[in-house]
């Protein structure tokens, strides 16, 4: 494990905090690390900043992520990684589509040719809206409390996606699935970063698998072609015990 000291923190939204730290390691956009808090547990986290300093942006769900959100500068945590393949970034106009904390893995892609759809359940949960110029950002909330009232795949109907060389998507799987369907119809070039139950992070425990592919090793980023026709994407996944549960998307 690599010992890390939190250098600076920044609150992004209610229960969402970015933790900046130094780590002399080359990392590609879309890669992730396993973060260990001794005595509490270990969870996967994308890197939201990959230069110097690096950062993770954490939304509190359970005990480990809550402890990270409560972290103060000077406090320590331990990491291993980086893991996963990362995005294959093509030059040219890009569109990011992020749902909730999914924006974290997309942020390192952003450059002067990047537009973003940032979505969340409600206004209070939107993150990184301040990282993009106003004319490059589209906001969607499930409850209509900010921006477009509805889901990202519905907002896509209002955009001309043919202007984008590639579209990069990260968020909860039901959202990814709907966006994949929409972008398939539009014949867009796109990559999706998936989140599934992860225990080992190194491609041996099978808890993160989607249709024979290990999200931690062959992913977390997959092309639209890899996901179209995948027998599990948007359909079912295995829980922490290995029990298959269905997402009821179809």
């Amino acid at each position, binding site marked *: 494990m690599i010992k890390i000291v939190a250098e600076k923190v920044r609150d992004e939204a209610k229960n969402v905090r970015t933790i900046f730290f130094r780590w002399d390691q080359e990392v590609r956009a879309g890669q992730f690390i396993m973060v260990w808090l001794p005595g509490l547990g270990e969870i996967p986290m994308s890197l939201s900043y990959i230069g110097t300093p690096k950062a993770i942006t954490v939304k509190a769900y359970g005990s480990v992520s809550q402890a990270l959100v409560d972290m103060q500068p000077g406090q320590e945590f331990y990491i291993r990684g980086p893991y996963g393949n990362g995005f294959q970034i093509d030059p040219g106009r890009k569109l990011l589509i992020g749902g909730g904390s999914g924006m974290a893995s997309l942020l390192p892609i952003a450059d002067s040719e990047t537009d973003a759809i940032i979505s969340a359940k409600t206004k209070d949960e939107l993150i990184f809206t301040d990282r993009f110029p106003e004319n490059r950002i589209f906001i969607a909330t499930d409850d209509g409390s900010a921006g477009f009232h509805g889901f990202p795949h519905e907002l896509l109907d209002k955009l001309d996606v043919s202007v984008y060389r590639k579209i990069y998507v990260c968020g909860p799987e039901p959202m990814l699935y709907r966006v994949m369907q929409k972008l398939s119809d539009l014949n867009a070039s796109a990559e999706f970063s998936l989140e599934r139950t992860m*225990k080992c992070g190194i491609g041996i*425990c*099978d808890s993160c698998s989607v249709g024979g592919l290990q999200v931690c090793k062959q992913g977390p980023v997959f092309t639209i072609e890899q996901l179209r026709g995948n027998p599990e994407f948007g359909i079912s996944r295995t829980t922490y015990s290995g029990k298959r549960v269905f997402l009821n998307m179809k």
Partner: protein
Amino acid sequence: MADLSTSVAGIRLENPLMLASGILDENGYTMLDVIANGAAAVVTKSIGLEERNGYSAPIIVEYGDSLINAVGLSNPGIDNFADEIRIAKKAGRPVIGSIFASDAESFTKLGMKMQEYGCDAVELNLSCPHVKGFGLEVGSDPDLVEEIVTELKSKIKVPVFAKLSPNVSDMIEIAKAAEKADAYVLINTVKAMKIDIRARSPILTNVYGGLSGPAIKPVGIRYVYEVKKETGKEIIGVGGITTYEDAIEYIMAGASAVQIGTALYTKGKSIFRDVASKMNTFMDDEGFSRIQDMVGVAIR
């Protein structure tokens, strides 16, 4: 071209390489993909009667090319596992159901279910080193091992493999207690642990885990050799196989087939096709035409 096909307990294998229990084998689609990558058979993750979450992460420590794991026998429970076997069976290759329990009655229930689901053999996990009441605690008691194997053999038709632990004082004694099994699987992981000196703490949530990978290969070779020499029974060798040389070494020590687990972490799923093809070249170069001709040739 040498003939890579072989058989264990009457089960025909296209090549001697099978997937080891607990690595990429809880999801039927993953098992399908492992077979598509050249594994002759897959062994499922060890399945028990009840759903278990196992330990919370960290459940794994990377130790060079080796690993220390304490997954904690997480599994969906036998009643939830039928679908995974059904999916894996679509590949048309043998699927071996690994099971764990603490007494003969439960092992028998599990074995009968695995047979009903279509498994081609049942592997008894008598050797997991890190879960109280299961695995090693069962597998180090010769009377209990004998009772489990005898009872199960009397109830099911498919072959039974006994997977033994190196964490016992006398493996030969346990092997003899399990002699009604159709083959032995040697070895499971070696009990171990890792402390992070900066955190001043064991890394695994369970503190103790099982060491696997290249670090344990010489131990595995020694047990396969010794048990083959003492019992003459069919053996499936497992522990640290990463290259074709490792696989051949196990076969020459007495294994009729081998299993690969940890090396999927360093080499990925393509290891099966890669090792098989290099084994073939080795056999041609060395004048072996069949796997059987190499089994136990090193035994003195």
